């Protein structure tokens, strides 16, 4: 909230006699005011002329401070302060007033709390006394107009203020002020405040400059992007649905996977509460079946994604780094998972043990078979791309060779989708077979264990990514 007030520097009683109601100039306050600011003037208490100067400077400082505080503490309109200063700098104006925006209770604090820049209450006087004040002061203070050569417009206008205004600081409670009480501690504190204020001003300036420059950079980048898009290069962007579809399979899958993960977390939590609360088998079965169906869902999503962008799945970029470490043909290894589970599923019946053992062996064999097929594919692809590079049959023959090679390689690459599909099929079948072998309660514990394992891997990835680096 703002109040139209006038700021007076401390005046001695002579000036007070010029028509200003008796304000007891609290010198410590003015000392505080004076020592804050960009220029430091010593304060000989006995010298009234320099007192005026310093007080005027104090005024300027006060306005600076007020400007800072106005900026820092609230979104007060900045325009008013300069305009007020303009008002003040106009020597023809009879009324000198400028806004001071104390952030909290105005004019009630006994002293200018420069220590706390956020809550500084500026000195102010009741507005009733402002009206006729300026005129009488102008005559007195006009010779004091140019004291410093600082080019800052703020300081210029305030210097003018200082010249015109006979400073009279009015504070409502001046009882505990004793004159000339500039002790070391206060001095140090004031100096620190000055420094802090200056630093914050500089920081603000730097920040604004940074914002401006990054805005420019942003517009430049967007233009580049636009240009590159027109040339047909695919660039993935988060907010552009109208663009070409080539990378959308990857992005779409990432989004779907994230959603699936959230849903999975929810379902697993439900399962956990059911297990911990010893729910009945029938209830557990429903929840477990729900989780199994949810796994089917991710395999379905992956199957669609493999048609759109098989390499995205193969790369594992949709998984976290630690999970990627264990990546096999675009997903987890079922045999590894079973190995982890067996220890946690005790007690198992003899038949279950045999079943799980067989399952482990089968999944291991299938994984080996698929891995070997992949290796053969890679080898063949490498051979396809490496033969014929030193063909001697002339340039046209080379081109034909090249085209033929590429066609063959393309065909071979196309079979990758089949491998991903079979790998996912293996994972799905393994999970379902495990569910068949185990009882409902054991399945529940198994599903919880699987989920916990993967969550820990994901947490490990986050920790890894956030680790401090030299």
């Amino acid at each position, binding site marked *: 909230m703002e109040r139209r007030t006038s700021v007076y520097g401390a005046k001695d009683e002579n000036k007070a006699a010029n028509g200003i109601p008796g304000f007891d100039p609290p010198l410590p306050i003015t000392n505080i005011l004076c020592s804050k600011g960009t220029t430091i003037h010593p304060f000989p208490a006995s010298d009234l002329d320099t007192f005026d100067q310093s007080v005027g400077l104090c005024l300027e400082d006060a306005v600076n401070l007020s400007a800072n505080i106005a900026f820092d503490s609230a979104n007060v309109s900045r325009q008013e302060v300069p305009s007020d200063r303009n008002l003040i700098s106009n020597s023809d104006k009879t009324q000198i007033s400028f806004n001071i925006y104390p952030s909290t209770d105005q004019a009630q604090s006994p002293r200018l709390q420069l220590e706390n820049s956020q809550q500084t209450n500026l000195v102010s006087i009741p507005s009733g006394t402002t009206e006729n004040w300026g005129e009488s002061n102008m005559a007195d203070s006009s010779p004091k107009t140019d004291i410093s050569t600082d080019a800052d417009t703020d300081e210029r206008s305030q210097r003018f203020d200082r010249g015109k205004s006979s400073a009279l600081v009015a504070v409502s409670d001046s009882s505990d002020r004793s004159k000339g009480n500039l002790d070391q501690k206060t001095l140090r504190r004031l100096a620190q405040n000055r420094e802090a204020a200056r630093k914050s001003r500089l920081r603000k300036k730097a920040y604004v400059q940074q914002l401006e420059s990054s805005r420019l950079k942003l517009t430049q980048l967007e233009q580049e992007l636009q240009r590159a898009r027109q040339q047909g290069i695919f660039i993935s962007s988060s907010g552009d649905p109208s663009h070409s579809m080539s990378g959308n399979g990857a992005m779409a899958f990432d989004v779907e996977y994230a959603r699936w993960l959230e849903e999975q977390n929810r379902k697993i939590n439900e399962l956990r509460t059911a297990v911990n609360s010893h729910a009945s088998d029938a209830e557990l079965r429903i929840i477990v079946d729900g989780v199994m169906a949810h796994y089917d869902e991710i395999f379905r999503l992956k199957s669609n994604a493999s048609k759109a962008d098989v390499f995205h799945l193969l790369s594992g970029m949709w998984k976290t780094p630690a999970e990627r470490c264990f990546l096999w043909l675009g997903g987890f290894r079922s045999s590894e998972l079973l190995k982890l589970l067996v220890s946690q599923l005790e007690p198992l019946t003899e038949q279950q043990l045999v079943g799980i053992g067989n399952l482990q062996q089968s999944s291991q064999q299938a994984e*080996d078979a698929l891995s070997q097929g992949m290796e053969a594919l890679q080898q063949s692809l490498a051979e396809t791309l490496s033969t014929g590079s030193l063909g001697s049959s002339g340039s046209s023959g080379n081109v034909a060779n090249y085209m033929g090679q590429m066609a063959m390689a393309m065909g*071979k690459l196309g079979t990758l989708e*089949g491998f991903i599909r079979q790998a996912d099929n*293996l994972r799905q079948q393994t999970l379902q077979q495990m569910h068949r072998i185990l009882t409902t309660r054991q399945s529940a514990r198994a599903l919880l264990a699987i989920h916990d394992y993967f969550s820990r891997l994901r947490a490990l990835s986050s920790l890894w990514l956030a680790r401090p680096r030299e």
Partner: protein
Amino acid sequence: MQSQTPPELSLLTYLPVPSFFSSQLLLLLISCINLLVVMDKVRDLASKKAAVIFTKSSCYMCYSIKTLFYELGASPAIHELDHDPNGRDMERALRGLGCDPSVPAVFIGGRFVGSAKDVISLHVDGSLKQMLKDAKAIWF
């Protein structure tokens, strides 16, 4: 229509054909007979050994399934369709049996089992091994 008529059907060309048969109908007839003949051939091949796999040398999934069978101790008979003169017809016949993709096509004990997906699913739940045992392709 295939560019080469299979040797079995070349005899048909010597049959007297009524002139009111259009050429297209004739071709259709020939291809149907062809298919049936080839299917018979496929089945015939498939029952010759306990485990038979129809593959293509360029298919790497076939390679994986072959590897799986070897790991299980079976020694399946491998027929590479791209090295067989009737390869295309056989591929069509296999597709007619419901095998998608047409290779690898697995037969155990003369019975059609399926493609890679079916084989993996059966292997995971233990049925594959049992089928192989039953067909005496493996003994343990």
